[in-house]
């Protein structure tokens, strides 16, 4: 691999899966039961390339002990997509980028993608759409890799929609099921609402910054054209607009992120998306595509840093979504839906972390993204394994004691559950701890003084408050408005969000272990659909489970104890903006927060154990304590009904009225105008009857008409 340039490798990561997809489409019939080969091989090769890139980038970043991180990025431009001369030139290159954030994302996407593809060999086996499934998975890996490697907002928009289209086709994979077709359409449309935000944000960005590129470009005459997230602008303290325009851009980006990452108020599509094949849910609706929103906000964090209100809104949306989805998750009986709401909830955590606007918050969000990708993919595949051997049944009330039937699935599911619940030392514990720490640092800024002092002495950053008073940082935040812009960007907000997140941590542990206990413990109960041969899934399905279980067990501790990920990500150009660097803190383990988090998880697990451990899963369980709240949660806060009543029905009514108007009024007028010559002819023909009395009558009527008309005139 020595003589292959990084640029080539970067192109290969998305290109290989695309080739795999095309080969699958072309030769799928021919390959028959081996139709998975092109996809699996190409994604494996892409993973190889991504790992080499990750290692190469890591070498460039260094160990991170030499003071503030230097930005590391590489751009490769493939071809000019469109150029239009004009007063404001519109020039869009197809340019890919490599930096720590992209390298991390590429590795996550290709590794989970590969495991899902391998798992699907077993899961999708015998499905008539076998080749189609692998073609779609490979296309998705291509699109997702392009999304995180694209280096301008237009390309991001392109692949933002492309992954949405893959998701649409995979949700509707079993298109004969009306629910699947409906869920696919719903997912696409709700995402389109988010895409609306991204499109308008893109237009506003272009008008504001004169380009859509992330990176700086050199024009023909050697002038640097600063990109939106290029190093020139990042170094410029006044490079980003705040105020109404800046906030509008950020809120529109947030809308887009809410669509793709299923946050309130656009989260409604994700639970329905569970109609798709479980491996697709695992890859797209848990591990990768739904994290695109987190990626987008992390990538454009310098824009958000100039708009504290928008940033705080990100946190509020995230923490609220985490709480609401967690509450709904506690009463779901469909195993996949529990996991779907859990995904929404965990994505909410990441948003809450991003919204703190601190370097810790950004890296913690990506850290949680990574660990979540592993353990949630694991949980989904575990659920798929259960579904596979239970004859397609996924209602937990019909399961019991499955640990005896499928021990490997049960053990790996338990590991995933522990990681999700945030139990030390599993992965989720460490990433969740960092998220809580970032929220805590904004809620109680004084408590974190120590960290800042230490960091300042090590050359990491200046002090939080010093930073605000130094001239160039004052320019970052100031010029348009001083830092404490409004009431929402205050410690009190973040204190509330912190407590909400802590409560959600308890909820998470509760619903996770409720699912674990209902499915795997208690008296053995197997639904009759499974037949008499309910058994553990084949090795091709359990091997990915085991690999992911190991990753879920150790990745958190590994990455946290060495601070490898945080140091690595800090060299991402977007995170080297002065406003972000100023918030850097010394990496630390917060014993107090870890204790609080663990306590919350312990309470949740204990409650779940009290309600469900060792009992039959079909009786009334914890719900009886919830009273009317149970209905509220089970009906998902009635959001689907509210949207139908407030958006869908009114629009349909307007459409109906327009259609009626079109036929009756507009077309009616046209026919009327067209009819005038005929009508005149007909009338004239009538009058030429030759009957004298008719003529006389006409004369009288005419005179009368004139008199009436005159009277009318005189009246006014």
């Amino acid at each position: 691999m020595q003589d292959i340039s990084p640029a080539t490798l970067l192109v290969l990561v998305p290109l290989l899966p695309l080739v795999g997809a095309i080969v699958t489409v072309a030769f799928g019939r021919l390959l028959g039961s081996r139709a998975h080969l092109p996809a699996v091989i190409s994604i494996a090769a892409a993973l190889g390339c991504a790992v080499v890139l990750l290692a190469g980038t890591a070498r460039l970043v260094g160990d991170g002990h030499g003071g503030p991180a230097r930005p590391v990025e590489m751009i490769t431009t493939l071809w000019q997509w469109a150029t239009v001369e004009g007063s404001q030139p519109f020039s869009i290159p197809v340019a890919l980028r490599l930096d720590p954030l992209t390298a991390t994302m590429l590795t996550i996407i290709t590794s989970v993608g590969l495991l899902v593809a391998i798992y699907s060999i077993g899961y999708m086996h015998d499905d008539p759409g076998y080749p189609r499934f692998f073609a779609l998975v490979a296309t998705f890996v291509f699109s997702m890799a392009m999304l995180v490697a694209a280096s301008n907002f237009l390309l991001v928009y392109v692949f933002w929609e492309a992954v949405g289209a893959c998701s649409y086709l995979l949700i509707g994979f079993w298109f004969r099921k009306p629910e699947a077709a409906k869920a696919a359409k719903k997912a696409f449309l709700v995402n389109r609402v988010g895409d609306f935000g991204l499109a308008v944000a893109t237009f506003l960005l272009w008008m504001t910054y004169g380009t859509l590129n992330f990176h700086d470009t050199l024009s023909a005459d050697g002038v640097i054209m600063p990109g939106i997230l290029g190093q020139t602008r990042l170094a410029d303290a006044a490079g980003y607009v705040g105020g109404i325009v800046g906030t509008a851009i950020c809120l529109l980006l947030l809308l887009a992120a809410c669509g793709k990452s299923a946050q309130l108020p656009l989260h409604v599509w994700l639970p329905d998306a569970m109609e798709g094949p479980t491996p697709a849910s695992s890859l797209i609706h848990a591990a990768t595509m739904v994290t695109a929103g987190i990626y987008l906000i992390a990538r454009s964090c310098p824009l958000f840093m100039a708009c504290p209100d928008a940033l705080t809104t990100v946190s509020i949306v995230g923490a609220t979504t985490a709480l609401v989805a967690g509450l709904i998750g506690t009463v779901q009986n469909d195993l996949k839906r529990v996991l779907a709401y859990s995904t929404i909830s965990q994505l909410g955590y990441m948003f809450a972390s991003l919204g703190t606007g601190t370097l810790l918050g950004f890296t913690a969000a990506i850290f949680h993204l990574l660990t979540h990708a592993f353990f949630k993919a694991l949980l989904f595949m575990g659920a798929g394994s259960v579904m596979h051997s239970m004859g397609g049944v996924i209602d937990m009330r019909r399961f019991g004691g499955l640990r005896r039937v499928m021990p490997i699935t049960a053990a790996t599911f338990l590991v995933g559950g522990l990681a999700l619940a945030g139990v030390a030392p599993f992965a989720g514990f460490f990433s969740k701890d960092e998220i809580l720490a970032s929220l805590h640092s904004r809620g109680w800024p004084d408590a974190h003084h120590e960290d800042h002092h230490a960091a300042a002495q090590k050359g990491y950053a200046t002090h939080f408050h010093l930073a605000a008073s130094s001239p160039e940082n004052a320019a970052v935040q100031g010029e348009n408005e001083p830092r404490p812009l409004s009431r929402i960007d205050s410690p009190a907000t973040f204190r509330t969000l912190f407590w909400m997140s802590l409560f959600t941590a308890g909820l998470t542990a509760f619903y996770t272990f409720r699912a674990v206990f209902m499915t795997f413990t208690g008296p053995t109960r197997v639904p009759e659909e499974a037949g008499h041969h309910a058994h553990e899934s084949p090795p091709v399905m359990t091997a990915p489970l085991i690999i992911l279980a190991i990753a879920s067990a150790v990745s958190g501790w590994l990455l946290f104890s060495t601070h490898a990920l945080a140091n690595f990500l800090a060299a991402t150009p977007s995170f080297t903006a002065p406003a972000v660097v100023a918030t850097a803190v010394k990496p630390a383990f917060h014993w107090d927060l870890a204790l609080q988090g663990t306590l919350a998880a312990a309470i949740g697990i204990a409650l779940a154990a009290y309600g469900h451990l060792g009992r039959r899963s079909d009786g009334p369980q914890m719900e009886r304590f919830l009273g009317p709240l149970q209905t509220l949660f089970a009906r998902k806060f009635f959001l689907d009904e509210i949207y139908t009543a407030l958006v869908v029905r009114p629009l349909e009514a307007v459409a109906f009225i327009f259609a009626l108007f079109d036929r009756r009024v507009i077309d009616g007028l046209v026919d009327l105008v067209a009819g005038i010559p005929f009508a005149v002819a007909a009338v004239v023909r009538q009058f030429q009857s030759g009957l004298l009395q008719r003529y006389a009558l006409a004369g009288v009527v005419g005179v009368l008409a004139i008199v009436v008309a005159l009277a009318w005139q005189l009246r006014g």
Partner: protein
Amino acid sequence: MNGLSPANHLLLVILMPLVGAVVAWLMGSRGQQAVRQSAAFTAVATLVAAGWLVIRFLTRPAGLSALEPFAVIEVPWLVEGMFDIRLSLGLDGLSIWLFGLSALLSLTAVLVSWDAIKEKPVGFYGLLLLLEAAMLGVFAARDIILFYVFFEFTLVPLFFLIGIWGHDERRKAAVKFFVYTLAGSVLSFLGLLAIVLWHASQTGTITFDIAGLTAGLQAHPLPMTAAGGWLQWLVFLALFAGFAVKVPIVPFHTWLPLAHVEAPTGGSVDLAGVLLKIGIYGFLRFSLPMLPEASAAAAPWLVGLGVFGILYGALVALVQTDLKRLIAYSSVSHMGYIVLGLFALEPLALEGANLQLINHGLSSAGLFALVGMIYERFHTRSIANLGGIAAKAPWLTVLFMLFTFSSIGLPGLNGFVGEFMILAGSFQRAWAGVAESFFQPYLFMAVSAVVGVVLGAWYMLWAVERVFFGPSREPPRSHSTDGHGSHAHHHGAHDDVDRCDLRWHEAAALLPLAVFVVWIGIMPQAFLSPAAPAIEQSARAAREAFADRMNLPPQDHAAGSSIAATASSLPYSPSSP
């Protein structure tokens, strides 16, 4: 064939369908098979010749100016004294893609009629080829007389195609289509005559040459004041009457759904793919360059009508029960985008609008062709009676999805490029190109246009869900007396569905369109640059007039320039692995 001059080549391309029509007529005695084969042969030959001409245009010697017309044929007719009347054909950046599209879609129209047309095939294919010649001619015309002759000549074949080979209400639809369009185009002709006469009164030469008239009118603009009788306004409105009906701009659109629903598939393909574009082409060729002040004054209103059309067409499409009518209304919505892009008057939006002409031509033609194929198989277009086609005809479904995605502007396909450029251009206009008082409405309109993108996905995906997905539904077969109903007429077990996927001629009709749908989406630059100089030339006067009207400093954008200034003073330290 190197000896073939471009001019003769162009003449050859326009004459080929006419010869083909005669050949088809001669084949009449040998039956349907011979007629359709000869028509297909003519369409293929014309497409090859036209495609080759387009390639010659794209690779013409670099020494020529980008604006130089290509393949010019001039026949002096009356060049004496004050008369300078010549019949003249030629191609330029404005017409080249539409010219190629006409040849491409004519082949599609022939191939989709393969099995659908059983009665009087001679007349059908003859008229289809006549229509092709007229479409090619209208884009190649360089003088007003020829333009108008070809323009009217597109109407006559389509009138008969709808009226004779159409569906149940074909008479009504044909008459409405004909009378409505004719009424508009007569007004347009009066407008064009007024232009000629004004030019003659100012310069002393009577000419019908479009380039000459454009130059003359820019030197001696028609009066825009009360003293001059608002002449430019009147002429603009006269031209508008014809072009707006043709586009169609809401509220002059009601002939379109009816004509589409009743037309045979081949007619729909040509109608949606090419004929609607003539209206926009007319605005670009005549209204913007010849009547810049009136165009500028009308621009805000037309932008408004365009945006209204986007939302109106989309909402009406949402409640349609007939698949073909739904796609017809989607055309209304999509043409709204093009009108918006045209009258935003920004280079970006204009180029997007021009590209969108081609894009819509490809995707709507593809969708209409596919609806025709569905009708041939199931004898219904009612969305409620269709369902689960994906299981019966997977490749048909794949292509329908492709054109649907193109139509709803999915990135990576062609529709996105045009739509995005139009919308970005509209934002540009709203941002920096309008006086303060207009800023709010313009921004509102630009945002509303983006809402149309959501609605567009709604109605199309709703239709796809109902028609292609879900359980397989057997539509009621009321008139299965003709050949097709019988072979799939058993109602028994539906699980092993009868496959009824694309046949070879259907695939051949659609694949070229699909190739361009993907190609334009991935590499739009190749399709933008040949047209760019010509578009800029035809729109510049109107843009400047607009800037004057709005008291704007022309060609200045505060945001971009100030940032560039700060950036050049900053240190730059590239670091890359």
